[in-house]
Protein backbone atom coordinates (compact mmCIF):
# COMPACT_ATOMS: atom_id res chain seq x y z
CA UNK A 1 0.00 0.00 0.00
CA UNK A 2 2.78 2.40 0.95
CA UNK A 3 4.60 1.37 -2.21
CA UNK A 4 1.51 2.09 -4.35
CA UNK A 5 0.91 5.42 -2.63
CA UNK A 6 4.54 6.35 -3.30
CA UNK A 7 4.22 5.49 -6.97
CA UNK A 8 1.00 7.48 -7.14
CA UNK A 9 2.75 10.51 -5.71
CA UNK A 10 5.59 10.20 -8.22
CA UNK A 11 3.04 9.72 -11.01
CA UNK A 12 1.19 12.84 -9.99
CA UNK A 13 4.36 14.91 -9.88
CA UNK A 14 5.43 13.41 -13.17
CA UNK A 15 2.13 14.35 -14.76
CA UNK A 16 2.49 17.95 -13.59
CA UNK A 17 6.08 18.18 -14.81
CA UNK A 18 5.05 16.72 -18.18
CA UNK A 19 2.12 19.13 -18.42
CA UNK A 20 4.38 22.07 -17.57
CA UNK A 21 6.98 21.03 -20.15
CA UNK A 22 4.38 20.45 -22.87
CA UNK A 23 2.72 23.81 -22.11
CA UNK A 24 6.05 25.62 -22.16
CA UNK A 25 6.99 23.92 -25.42
CA UNK A 26 3.68 24.75 -27.07
CA UNK A 27 3.85 28.37 -25.92
CA UNK A 28 7.21 28.69 -27.62
CA UNK A 29 6.15 26.97 -30.82
CA UNK A 30 3.67 29.46 -32.26
CA UNK A 31 3.55 29.24 -36.02
CA UNK A 32 5.43 31.85 -38.00
CA UNK A 33 3.29 34.40 -39.84
CA UNK A 34 3.15 33.48 -43.53
CA UNK A 35 3.96 36.49 -45.68
CA UNK A 36 4.88 37.38 -49.23
CA UNK A 37 6.67 40.42 -50.66
CA UNK A 38 4.41 43.11 -52.03
CA UNK A 39 4.55 46.69 -53.23
CA UNK A 40 2.53 49.46 -51.63
CA UNK A 41 1.26 52.16 -53.97
CA UNK A 42 1.08 55.26 -51.80
CA UNK A 43 -2.27 57.00 -51.46
CA UNK A 44 -2.60 60.73 -52.03
CA UNK A 45 -3.02 62.11 -48.47
CA UNK A 46 -5.51 64.68 -49.79
CA UNK A 47 -7.90 62.02 -51.07
CA UNK A 48 -7.08 59.11 -48.74
CA UNK A 49 -10.14 57.42 -47.21
CA UNK A 50 -10.72 57.36 -43.47
CA UNK A 51 -12.75 54.64 -41.80
CA UNK A 52 -14.03 53.98 -38.29
CA UNK A 53 -14.68 50.45 -37.07
CA UNK A 54 -18.35 50.08 -36.13
CA UNK A 55 -18.21 47.06 -33.82
CA UNK A 56 -15.67 45.20 -31.74
CA UNK A 57 -14.14 42.66 -34.13
CA UNK A 58 -12.04 39.67 -33.17
CA UNK A 59 -9.55 38.43 -35.73
CA UNK A 60 -8.34 34.83 -35.62
CA UNK A 61 -4.87 34.65 -37.12
CA UNK A 62 -3.53 31.54 -38.83
CA UNK A 63 -0.78 31.50 -36.17
CA UNK A 64 -3.40 30.75 -33.50
CA UNK A 65 -3.19 34.23 -31.99
CA UNK A 66 -6.12 36.64 -31.82
CA UNK A 67 -6.28 40.35 -32.44
CA UNK A 68 -9.09 42.79 -31.71
CA UNK A 69 -10.25 45.84 -33.65
CA UNK A 70 -11.89 48.17 -31.15
CA UNK A 71 -15.23 49.73 -31.93
CA UNK A 72 -14.62 53.37 -32.77
CA UNK A 73 -10.98 52.86 -33.74
CA UNK A 74 -10.00 55.05 -36.67
CA UNK A 75 -7.90 54.07 -39.67
CA UNK A 76 -6.49 56.12 -42.53
CA UNK A 77 -5.75 54.80 -46.00
CA UNK A 78 -2.04 54.91 -46.77
CA UNK A 79 -2.08 53.11 -50.08
CA UNK A 80 -3.05 50.07 -52.06
CA UNK A 81 -1.62 46.61 -52.60
CA UNK A 82 -2.81 44.02 -55.11
CA UNK A 83 -5.10 42.49 -52.49
CA UNK A 84 -6.91 45.68 -51.47
CA UNK A 85 -6.72 49.09 -49.80
CA UNK A 86 -4.25 49.52 -46.94
CA UNK A 87 -5.29 51.30 -43.74
CA UNK A 88 -3.05 52.39 -40.89
CA UNK A 89 -4.28 52.99 -37.34
CA UNK A 90 -4.73 56.69 -36.61
CA UNK A 91 -5.06 56.42 -32.84
CA UNK A 92 -2.87 53.50 -31.80
CA UNK A 93 -0.47 50.88 -33.11
CA UNK A 94 -1.45 47.50 -34.45
CA UNK A 95 0.58 44.34 -34.83
CA UNK A 96 0.09 40.67 -35.58
CA UNK A 97 1.98 37.85 -33.89
CA UNK A 98 3.06 34.31 -34.50
CA UNK A 99 6.50 33.14 -33.52
CA UNK A 100 7.49 36.79 -34.04
CA UNK A 101 5.67 40.10 -34.00
CA UNK A 102 5.05 42.34 -37.00
CA UNK A 103 3.61 45.85 -37.16
CA UNK A 104 0.56 45.55 -39.39
CA UNK A 105 -1.84 47.70 -41.40
CA UNK A 106 -5.28 46.43 -42.42
CA UNK A 107 -5.86 45.33 -46.01
CA UNK A 108 -9.54 45.77 -46.88
CA UNK A 109 -11.29 44.68 -50.04
CA UNK A 110 -15.04 45.13 -50.58
CA UNK A 111 -15.62 45.93 -46.88
CA UNK A 112 -13.90 42.71 -45.82
CA UNK A 113 -10.58 42.39 -44.01
CA UNK A 114 -8.53 40.13 -46.26
CA UNK A 115 -5.11 40.39 -44.68
CA UNK A 116 -2.36 42.70 -43.45
CA UNK A 117 0.36 44.83 -44.93
CA UNK A 118 3.55 44.58 -42.85
CA UNK A 119 5.31 47.96 -43.22
CA UNK A 120 8.50 46.76 -41.55
CA UNK A 121 8.97 44.11 -44.21
CA UNK A 122 7.07 45.41 -47.25
CA UNK A 123 5.12 42.17 -47.16
CA UNK A 124 1.53 40.94 -47.23
CA UNK A 125 0.04 38.33 -44.92
CA UNK A 126 -3.38 36.91 -45.80
CA UNK A 127 -6.08 36.00 -43.31
CA UNK A 128 -7.26 32.35 -43.48
CA UNK A 129 -10.68 33.67 -44.54
CA UNK A 130 -11.90 37.22 -45.34
CA UNK A 131 -13.63 38.85 -42.38
CA UNK A 132 -16.59 41.21 -42.97
CA UNK A 133 -16.18 44.55 -41.20
CA UNK A 134 -18.77 47.05 -40.03
CA UNK A 135 -17.98 50.73 -40.39
CA UNK A 136 -19.57 53.82 -38.87
Amino acid at each position, binding site marked *: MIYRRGLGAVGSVGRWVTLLLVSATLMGCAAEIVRMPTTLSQADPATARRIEIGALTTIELASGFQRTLLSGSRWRQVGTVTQGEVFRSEDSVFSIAGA*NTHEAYLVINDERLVGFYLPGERAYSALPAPLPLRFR
Partner: protein
Amino acid sequence: MNWLRAFLIAVISILATGCATGPSFNDMKSKMPALGKDTGRVFIYRDSSFGAAMQPQIAINGKTVGTSRANGFFFVDLPAGEHRVSASTEVERSLTFALEGGQTRYVRAYISFGLVVGRINFDLVNAEAGEAALAGLAYSPE
Protein backbone atom coordinates in the same frame (compact mmCIF):
# COMPACT_ATOMS: atom_id res chain seq x y z
CA MET B 1 10.21 33.63 12.36
CA ASN B 2 13.92 34.03 11.55
CA TRP B 3 13.60 31.52 8.76
CA LEU B 4 10.72 33.51 7.26
CA ARG B 5 12.79 36.72 7.34
CA ALA B 6 15.72 34.92 5.73
CA PHE B 7 13.41 33.46 3.09
CA LEU B 8 11.90 36.87 2.26
CA ILE B 9 15.35 38.46 2.04
CA ALA B 10 16.45 35.67 -0.29
CA VAL B 11 13.38 36.10 -2.51
CA ILE B 12 13.80 39.89 -2.67
CA SER B 13 17.50 39.49 -3.45
CA ILE B 14 16.74 37.10 -6.29
CA LEU B 15 14.08 39.42 -7.68
CA ALA B 16 16.32 42.47 -7.41
CA THR B 17 19.32 40.78 -9.05
CA GLY B 18 19.59 41.98 -12.59
CA CYS B 19 17.22 44.91 -12.22
CA ALA B 20 18.37 48.05 -14.01
CA THR B 21 19.83 50.96 -12.07
CA GLY B 22 20.36 54.38 -13.59
CA PRO B 23 18.76 57.78 -14.09
CA SER B 24 15.01 57.90 -14.54
CA PHE B 25 13.28 58.65 -17.83
CA ASN B 26 12.32 62.12 -16.54
CA ASP B 27 15.96 62.85 -15.64
CA MET B 28 17.09 61.67 -19.07
CA LYS B 29 14.41 63.37 -21.14
CA SER B 30 16.02 66.82 -21.29
CA LYS B 31 19.41 65.30 -22.17
CA MET B 32 18.22 63.38 -25.18
CA PRO B 33 19.40 64.82 -28.50
CA ALA B 34 16.84 66.35 -30.84
CA LEU B 35 15.83 64.19 -33.78
CA GLY B 36 16.77 65.10 -37.33
CA LYS B 37 14.04 65.13 -39.96
CA ASP B 38 15.20 61.80 -41.42
CA THR B 39 15.80 60.14 -38.06
CA GLY B 40 13.40 58.45 -35.63
CA ARG B 41 13.82 57.23 -32.06
CA VAL B 42 13.09 53.76 -30.70
CA PHE B 43 12.72 53.18 -26.96
CA ILE B 44 13.19 49.58 -25.84
CA TYR B 45 12.06 48.82 -22.30
CA ARG B 46 11.25 46.03 -19.86
CA ASP B 47 8.68 47.00 -17.24
CA SER B 48 8.55 43.77 -15.26
CA SER B 49 10.85 42.05 -12.77
CA PHE B 50 9.86 38.63 -14.05
CA GLY B 51 12.91 36.84 -15.41
CA ALA B 52 15.17 39.58 -14.03
CA ALA B 53 18.21 37.30 -14.13
CA MET B 54 17.86 37.12 -17.92
CA GLN B 55 19.55 40.03 -19.63
CA PRO B 56 19.62 39.30 -23.35
CA GLN B 57 21.39 41.55 -25.80
CA ILE B 58 19.09 43.45 -28.13
CA ALA B 59 19.93 43.82 -31.80
CA ILE B 60 18.42 46.10 -34.41
CA ASN B 61 18.85 44.95 -37.99
CA GLY B 62 21.37 42.41 -36.70
CA LYS B 63 23.59 44.89 -34.84
CA THR B 64 23.73 44.79 -31.02
CA VAL B 65 22.45 48.07 -29.59
CA GLY B 66 21.95 47.34 -25.89
CA THR B 67 21.00 44.95 -23.15
CA SER B 68 17.46 44.29 -21.95
CA ARG B 69 17.31 44.58 -18.15
CA ALA B 70 14.29 44.27 -15.90
CA ASN B 71 12.79 47.68 -15.10
CA GLY B 72 15.20 49.36 -17.49
CA PHE B 73 15.09 51.15 -20.83
CA PHE B 74 17.38 52.53 -23.48
CA PHE B 75 16.85 54.27 -26.79
CA VAL B 76 18.36 54.20 -30.25
CA ASP B 77 18.12 56.83 -32.97
CA LEU B 78 17.74 55.27 -36.40
CA PRO B 79 17.27 56.40 -39.97
CA ALA B 80 13.67 56.34 -41.19
CA GLY B 81 12.77 53.03 -42.81
CA GLU B 82 12.09 49.39 -41.98
CA HIS B 83 13.66 47.95 -38.84
CA ARG B 84 13.85 44.61 -37.02
CA VAL B 85 14.43 44.34 -33.26
CA SER B 86 15.59 40.91 -32.13
CA ALA B 87 17.04 39.03 -29.18
CA SER B 88 17.87 35.43 -28.38
CA THR B 89 17.32 33.48 -25.22
CA GLU B 90 16.54 29.83 -25.84
CA VAL B 91 14.96 30.92 -29.13
CA GLU B 92 15.24 34.09 -31.19
CA ARG B 93 12.29 36.47 -31.19
CA SER B 94 11.85 39.59 -33.31
CA LEU B 95 9.61 42.55 -34.04
CA THR B 96 9.48 44.37 -37.37
CA PHE B 97 8.13 47.88 -37.80
CA ALA B 98 8.41 51.02 -39.90
CA LEU B 99 9.94 54.22 -38.55
CA GLU B 100 9.32 57.69 -39.98
CA GLY B 101 11.55 60.74 -39.68
CA GLY B 102 10.82 62.55 -36.39
CA GLN B 103 8.76 59.62 -35.11
CA THR B 104 9.27 57.90 -31.74
CA ARG B 105 8.35 54.22 -31.32
CA TYR B 106 8.04 52.22 -28.11
CA VAL B 107 9.02 48.56 -27.93
CA ARG B 108 8.14 46.59 -24.81
CA ALA B 109 10.27 43.52 -24.13
CA TYR B 110 9.09 40.88 -21.69
CA ILE B 111 10.08 37.43 -20.55
CA SER B 112 7.70 34.50 -20.80
CA PHE B 113 8.05 30.88 -19.71
CA GLY B 114 10.27 28.68 -21.83
CA LEU B 115 11.22 25.05 -21.91
CA VAL B 116 14.52 25.43 -20.04
CA VAL B 117 14.92 29.16 -19.52
CA GLY B 118 12.54 32.03 -20.22
CA ARG B 119 11.93 33.48 -23.66
CA ILE B 120 12.01 37.13 -24.64
CA ASN B 121 9.12 38.63 -26.58
CA PHE B 122 8.42 42.06 -28.04
CA ASP B 123 5.33 44.24 -28.32
CA LEU B 124 5.00 47.48 -30.26
CA VAL B 125 3.03 49.82 -28.00
CA ASN B 126 1.47 53.23 -28.56
CA ALA B 127 3.06 56.46 -27.31
CA GLU B 128 0.68 56.86 -24.38
CA ALA B 129 1.39 53.40 -22.96
CA GLY B 130 5.07 53.63 -23.78
CA GLU B 131 5.64 56.96 -22.04
CA ALA B 132 3.62 55.86 -19.01
CA ALA B 133 5.79 52.75 -18.66
CA LEU B 134 9.06 54.61 -19.17
CA ALA B 135 8.28 57.02 -16.33
CA GLY B 136 8.95 54.29 -13.78
CA LEU B 137 12.06 52.78 -15.36
CA ALA B 138 15.81 53.32 -15.13
CA TYR B 139 18.02 54.25 -18.08
CA SER B 140 20.23 51.25 -18.74
CA PRO B 141 22.00 51.49 -22.08
CA GLU B 142 24.85 48.97 -21.64
